[in-house]
C-alpha cells in the first residue's frame, strides 16, 4: 500500500495521525509537533518575554523534547533557559540520563545544575529502598525531586519551572484523581499552575497536549540523544493500571485522551472556585522553612522517619 504525506506529498511516511487519519513524513511530523507545542504555549500564555525558564531535565524523551522546543524561544531572545537534573542515586540507571542531560545542556550552552539526593539530604534512593520500612520509591522520589526543583528555581533566578508532562501523564492524573475522589488535587492540574505560597515558582507543562508516543517518535525522528530505560523501582502502580485502562479505551476511541483533557479544562475553574471558598493556609516548615500546610513539610517528615534529619 502506497501512503503519501498529507502535508507535502512525500512517499516516505513515518506516522499516521489516529485522530485525522493523515499520514506524515519525518519533516512534516517534526514540524507538526513543534507547531502544536508552540500553539499551546501561546494559547495558555505559558511564556512571557524575559522569562528565565528552569527546565527539569532528566535526560529522558519528554524533558529532552521540552528543552529542544523551548530552545527555539531562547534562540529568538524571547526567554532564557537554565536546567536542573536530579540524581536520586539509583545505581545502573540514573547516571546515563544525567550524562545525556549534561550533553544537551553543553550542546545548547545552557546553565545546568545536577543535584544529588545524597548531597542534599544525606541519603540516596538506593539507601532508602535498602530499608525494610519505606513508603515506596515513587513517594520519596516525587517529594524530594519537587523540593530540589523548587529550591533550584529560586537559586537560579527562574521565573517559571517547565516540566515534560505529556498528554498521557495529564490524562492519567485527571482520571486517577477522579477515581480516588481527590478533588483538591484535581484542581491543581493544568497547563500552568501557581501555588498560593510565594516561594513556589509558577510551573508550566508545554507538552501537555502531545501524546507520549509522539514524543518518543519525535526524539527518534530528530535523532536526539535520550535515555530510554525503565526505572528499576518501577512497580505495578495505580497510575499504570489507569494508563492501561485509558490506552485500551484509546484503541477503540482514538480521541479519548484529548476529550478527557478538554472536559477537565472546562470544569477545572468551576471546581476550583467552589473549593477556593475554603481557606487554604500556608505556613513555613519549622525545620527547613519551605512552604507547607503543616508544621513539618512532607520532605522533613520523611527525613525524620528515615532518621537522617
Amino acid at each position, binding site marked *: *500500500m502506497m*501512503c503519501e504525506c498529507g502535508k507535502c506529498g512525500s512517499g*516516505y*511516511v*513515518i*506516522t*499516521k495521525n489516529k485522530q485525522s487519519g493523515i*499520514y506524515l513524513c*519525518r519533516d512534516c511530523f517534526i514540524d507538526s509537533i513543534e507547531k502544536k507545542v508552540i500553539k499551546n504555549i501561546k494559547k495558555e500564555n505559558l511564556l512571557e518575554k524575559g522569562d528565565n525558564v528552569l527546565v527539569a531535565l532528566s535526560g529522558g*524523551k519528554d524533558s529532552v523534547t521540552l528543552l529542544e522546543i523551548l530552545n527555539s524561544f531562547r534562540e529568538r531572545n524571547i526567554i532564557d533557559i537554565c536546567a536542573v537534573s536530579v540524581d536520586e542515586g539509583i545505581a545502573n540507571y540514573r547516571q546515563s540520563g544525567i550524562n545525556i542531560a549534561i550533553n544537551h545542556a553543553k550542546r545548547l550552552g545552557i546553565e545546568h545544575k545536577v543535584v544529588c539526593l545524597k548531597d542534599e539530604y544525606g541519603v540516596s534512593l538506593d539507601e532508602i529502598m535498602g530499608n525494610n520500612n519505606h513508603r515506596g520509591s*515513587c513517594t520519596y522520589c516525587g517529594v524530594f525531586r519537587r523540593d530540589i526543583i523548587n529550591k533550584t528555581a529560586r537559586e537560579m533566578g527562574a521565573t517559571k519551572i517547565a516540566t515534560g508532562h505529556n498528554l498521557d501523564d495529564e490524562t492519567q492524573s485527571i482520571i486517577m484523581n477522579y477515581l480516588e475522589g481527590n478533588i483538591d488535587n484535581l484542581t491543581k492540574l493544568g497547563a500552568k499552575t501557581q501555588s498560593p505560597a510565594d516561594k513556589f515558582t509558577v510551573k508550566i507543562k508545554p507538552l501537555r497536549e502531545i501524546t*507520549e*508516543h509522539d*514524543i*518518543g*517518535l519525535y526524539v*527518534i*525522528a530528530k535523532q536526539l540523544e535520550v535515555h*530510554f*530505560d*525503565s*526505572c528499576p*523501582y*518501577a*512497580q*505495578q*502502580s495505580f497510575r*499504570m493500571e489507569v*494508563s492501561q485502562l485509558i*490506552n485500551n479505551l*484509546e484503541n477503540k476511541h482514538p480521541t479519548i485522551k484529548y476529550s478527557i483533557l478538554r472536559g477537565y479544562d472546562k470544569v477545572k475553574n468551576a471546581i476550583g472556585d467552589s473549593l477556593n471558598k475554603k481557606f487554604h493556609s500556608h505556613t513555613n516548615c519549622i525545620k527547613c522553612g519551605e512552604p507547607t500546610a503543616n508544621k513539618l513539610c512532607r520532605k522533613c517528615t520523611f527525613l525524620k522517619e528515615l532518621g537522617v534529619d
Partner: protein
Amino acid sequence: MNFILKFKDIDEQREIPHENYTIDELLKDLNLSSQNIVSKLNGELVIEESEIHNNDEVQLIQIIYGG
C-alpha cells in the same frame, strides 16, 4: 522467506508467516502495543502498516516504560 528482528536483546531470524505480513501483525504476534513502540524497517522509520519482505531487517524500539 525470512526477516531479521531486532528488539531489546533479541537479534534473530524469523520466518515471514504469510504474504503481505505487516509490522502491525508482527507487533500483535509479539504481544506488543503499537502505543509503546516505534518501528524501523531496514534502518528507516516506518508506519505499522508497512509490509515485511524477504531479508528485511525490522527494529522495534520501546519508547514507553512503566514507572
